[in-house]
């Protein structure tokens, strides 16, 4: 039945299903690690950036909103989640611009995105706790690169 659906429905393409799984894994890892250790790594953002290299606009819109739904922690507007939802669309536009390998571009965009988030929402951390930013960014880059390679294989 799934094979039939995949043949006749682009929405259920292997890449799209894999992208959803990667986002779920990233969001779950972010939430579980954060709840237990109080340290939050932007795995969901890294997942969104990685899958933005392979999906179409409408599929990406669905995943971005899914990420916002999963990460939302308050019944109010959040600029941080707006950023998380918007960055993948920027990547979608710019993904072919960088001259090097696409997986390097993925890592670059993840690092740049997280650096931009810290610069916008908590610039003080660069001065007081730079290690927080470095651990967050490097872990997310590794996750994003693995997610990219997985998407490429599928």
């Amino acid at each position: 039945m799934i094979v039939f659906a995949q043949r006749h429905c682009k929405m259920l393409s292997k890449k799209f299903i894999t992208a959803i799984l990667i986002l779920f894994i990233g969001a779950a890892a972010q939430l579980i690690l954060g709840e237990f250790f109080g340290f939050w790594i932007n795995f969901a953002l890294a997942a969104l950036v990685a899958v933005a290299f392979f999906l179409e606009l409408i599929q990406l819109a669905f995943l971005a909103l899914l990420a916002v739904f999963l990460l939302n922690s308050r019944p109010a507007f959040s600029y941080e989640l707006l950023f998380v939802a918007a960055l993948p669309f920027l990547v979608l536009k710019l993904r072919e611009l960088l001259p090097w390998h696409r997986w390097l571009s993925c890592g670059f965009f993840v690092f740049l995105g997280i650096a931009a988030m810290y610069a916008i929402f908590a610039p003080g951390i660069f001065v007081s706790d730079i290690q927080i930013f470095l651990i967050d960014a490097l872990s997310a880059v590794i996750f994003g690169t693995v997610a990219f390679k997985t998407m490429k294989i599928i």
Partner: protein
Amino acid sequence: MTKSNSVLLALIVVLVFLIFFAPQIAWQARSYLTSVAIPSTSSGNNAEAVALENVALKAELAKLENIKSQLPEKPYNYIRAIVLSRYPMNFQKEFLVDAGSIDGVTEKHAVVFQGALVGRVSKVFDTTALVETVFDPNFETSVRIGAYATDALFKGGLTPELKLIPLEAKVKQGDVDFAASPDFPYGLPIAAVKEVRVSDDKLFEEAMLEFSYDINSIKSVLIATAR
């Protein structure tokens, strides 16, 4: 527009609705996700299944006991609240509780855990409220330290500190700092002094702090309804 795109558009509309009108579904899912510690099994062995169910029930009981142990006797002028979700990034240290304006919660009031000040209400909704914890980089309040009630400034962050302690103050390791801001009930303890040092500009002393609780394990708090 293709059929698959129409389906995706419909799903997007559903997600937008959930984000704005039913975010509690995601909070419940998060709570379930983080509380699931016992792996499920599909074993056909009855004895093993019963033993595993027993373990699962004990785990559930332990979880409830844990929550119960964190529910202190409710003092007068306090509202009890359960932590629903935590802010999922490193920029702020805040959590959402299940008490809001209809319960009498108002902004800036003290949030207490096991007798210690853990934060203040930063935003109030109808049935929920956001709590800015003392570990939030934006959290600052005036405090007094130890038996001499030395004035100082509590500065939040990943490792909260006491700033602006006069050089001649007799602050030592183990002294407890307590709230001295008009926003909070006077005398609410916050943390104990771990280490005292002279500030970089040599004009004041600063102190590192030691907390008696793990902010990530807090499941329920008390919210002051009067200052």
